[in-house]
């Protein structure tokens, strides 16, 4: 059994009377690619923000890379990479300037940042886009640049919140090839997506609905257990059932 990269137990987060995340429990092993699925508004982003040390839980336990989500958020931030749903780079800055900024934010030395940028431009094929203002880049390249920023400090765990939203099918495949390479190098990947074919690439997935995890396991096992033909139909039937139960 691999050690855990993410370990959470009965983790909750409320905003006033609204419970965004409701006592969720899950374990992600080191090196695993974990798909964190759910309906819009189910609480996925709130969970990721708690795991990245950006938001305090209201209840429950949580550890990321062995660090406590309540008390050790600074250590967590240094150990993980986070690529948010929205494009998080400065549009007016070039790719290189953005990456330099991230390097400084993570406290990397100038020389280490420089080497890091060179490595990433090879790996992500960013060369020709590095010195253009970010706002001129097509979506697919912006996402790659954002991935570059999340990888600069060589994180062991990567959190990606809908990284391929709005990206065309070819770019999506290339983006996932990059994630696969990282996974083969032992990086733990924790990713949300609405593309069910991407979810099938994951070692395990969970499906979240209204703050709770309603299903978890290997993608093909989940499909089989629900007597469905594919993950898309499984997701639709599962979530509509939940909605009916709640109605």
């Amino acid at each position, binding site marked *: 059994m691999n050690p855990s990269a993410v370990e959470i137990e009965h983790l909750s987060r409320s905003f006033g009377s609204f419970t965004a995340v409701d006592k969720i429990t899950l374990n992600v092993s080191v090196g695993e690619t974990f798909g964190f699925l*759910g*309906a*819009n*508004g*189910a609480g996925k982003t709130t969970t990721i923000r708690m795991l990245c040390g950006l938001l305090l839980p209201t209840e429950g336990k949580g550890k990321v890379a062995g660090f406590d989500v309540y008390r050790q958020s600074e250590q967590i931030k240094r150990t993980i990479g986070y690529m948010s*749903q929205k494009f998080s780079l400065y549009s007016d800055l070039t790719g290189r300037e953005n990456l330099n900024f991230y390097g400084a934010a993570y406290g990397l030395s100038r020389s280490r940042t420089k080497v890091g940028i060179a490595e990433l431009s090879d790996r992500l094929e960013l060369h020709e886009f590095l010195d253009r203002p970010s706002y001129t880049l*097509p*979506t*697919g*390249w912006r996402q790659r640049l954002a991935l570059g920023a999340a990888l600069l400090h060589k994180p062991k765990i990567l959190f990606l919140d*809908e990284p391929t*939203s*709005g*990206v*065309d*099918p*070819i*770019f*999506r*495949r290339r983006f*996932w*090839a990059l994630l*696969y*390479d990282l996974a*083969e190098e032992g990086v733990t990947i924790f990713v949300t997506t*609405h593309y*069910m*074919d991407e979810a*099938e*690439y994951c070692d395990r997935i969970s499906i979240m609905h209204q703050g709770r995890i309603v299903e978890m396991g290997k*993608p*093909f096992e989940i499909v089989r257990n629900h007597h469905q033909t*594919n*993950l*898309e139909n499984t*997701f*639709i039937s599962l*979530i*509509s059932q939940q909605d009916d139960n709640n109605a």
Partner: protein
Amino acid sequence: MFFLEVSHLQKAYNSVPAVNDFSLSLDKGKIYALVGPDGAGKTTIIRTLCNLVRPDKGTIVIDNMDVFSQFDMIKPLLGYMPQVFSLYPDLSVEENLVFHAGIYGVMGDKYRTRRDEMYRFSHLKPFANRRAGDLSGGMKQKLALSCALMHDPSLLVLDEPTTGVDPLSRSQFWDVLLRLKTQGVAILLTTPYMDEVARADNACFIFEGRKMAEGSPDELVRIFDGSVFFINITPDARTIERLNNIENVSATRFGAGLHLYLPSDHSPEQYRVELTSVGINPSIAEPIEPDLEDCFIQMIEKAV
């Protein structure tokens, strides 16, 4: 004469062509999908159609009226949902509906009737007083669609309406589009989802501003050159790379398995030695019909 006719559209930005001799026609009660990689020109075409961008050349006629000279008369016929969420985040759901209806002079009883129709499909009524900015992704898209529909347009133009929307909301969104279609609305949309393209009446693949292929989904699939096999193995990067290095063979990841592409009339058995060296027994390769995604990938690879 079709309800919408786009003819020989041409648009360049700083002498870089964004749209190149592009034409399409669409009738009422039909759905047309524009498909292409980032930067292919889809959004430029859509903006031109909504008179937000002036083309260098070409004409757009909607209901026998010219978009550039008669836009005031076309405006009431046109519903547009841009790619980027463009509602007022500080206004509530209902305030956004009132505002959009008001722009088109839909008020009073007419407004209330329309609003209730929109709530029936969107299930947004319980959230009428929630700030639009606080809605989830799927709800935002449903609200944006409702706003675009408040004035009962005959032509609906949607730029990636289901991006960032979960599978259930996406399937509900399509239920609405198909209902509008039966009511005679003409729908033009862009989408990165091939299963959505399959539900359109017609679609075209665009690359670098140019139309590469056009037809019904069934016709588009027939353009595929070669044969496709599904192989149910974990598609790690190295396997894919090694398959792509075999002459006449290419492969791409599909869900938890991979698709193997061979020239027409070739069988995996003919590549027994090469496939075995990659760790694949050719007998597990299962022949399948190409789908739209296979076609799209092949088209882009040929074009690049």
